[in-house]
């Protein structure tokens, strides 16, 4: 575990540093912002797949994967939504703009936070099922969200936040390395969260069993 961490951390520090940019150093935020977004999308996709799998097979493992991927996905999504404005401010002079990608990410964040709240607030054994259903709704909604905001934007054009025309191959290289690093990081985080959840559920099960057996052992 530590090996993976160390090697990734090295990559990170080294690579995020070198390539200079025309927009100035601020542009480097891009190396954190974009991979975080891609990772978040990937995690949400995993959540969708896990949720569907749960609906078909009722696998407890699938449910935990769904929970974990949603949580970590929201974390990465938060990073995107925070680094976005921090990048936008010095470059375009505004904190926020309702452009397609940013707005879609915000809505995505809202949907999955709602998902997590449903998990937290729903009582009893049916949580996984209900959550999985919601996840399906949410995932199906995403393309619709994108289109609706896209339409809205073409009607009400706002400052264009382009990704910058062509990508210097060296920059692309840096970007991909950072993405790889973030993926490893995300995997580690997910894995440890998964273990936590797994142990927690086992403990709960044991406690439930003991509660059942209790009366007999007392007498």
């Amino acid at each position, binding site marked *: 575990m530590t090996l993976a961490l160390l090697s990734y951390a090295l990559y990170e520090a080294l690579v995020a540093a070198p390539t200079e940019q025309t927009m100035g150093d601020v542009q480097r935020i891009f190396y*954190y912002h974009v991979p975080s977004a891609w990772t978040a999308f990937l995690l949400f996709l995993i959540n969708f797949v896990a949720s569907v799998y749960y609906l078909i097979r009722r696998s407890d493992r699938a449910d935990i994967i769904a929970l974990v991927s949603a*949580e970590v996905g929201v974390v990465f999504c938060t*990073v995107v939504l925070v680094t976005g404005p921090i990048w936008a401010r010095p470059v375009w002079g505004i904190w926020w703009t309702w452009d397609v990608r940013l707005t879609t990410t915000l809505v995505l964040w809202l949907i999955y936070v709602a998902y997590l709240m449903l998990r937290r607030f729903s009582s009893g054994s049916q949580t996984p099922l209900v959550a999985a259903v919601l996840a399906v709704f949410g995932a199906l909604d995403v393309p619709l969200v994108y289109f609706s905001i896209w339409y809205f934007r073409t009607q009400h054009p706002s400052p264009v936040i382009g990704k910058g025309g062509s990508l210097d191959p060296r920059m692309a290289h840096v970007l991909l390395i950072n993405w790889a690093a973030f993926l490893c990081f995300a995997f580690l*985080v997910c894995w440890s969260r998964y273990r936590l959840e797994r142990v927690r559920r086992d403990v709960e099960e044991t406690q439930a069993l003991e509660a059942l057996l209790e009366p007999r052992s007392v007498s």
Partner: protein
Amino acid sequence: MTYLYAAYAATWIIHLVYLGSVLIGYRRLQREIQDMARKKPR
């Protein structure tokens, strides 16, 4: 510029906060397991 540091810092702070909550979860669970072990000295 300072914005760059702010962004990088923010990213890691967010991640650390989450990892922190996971760690707290672990600790709490450890305590529970210890409690359970104590209550059943078998």
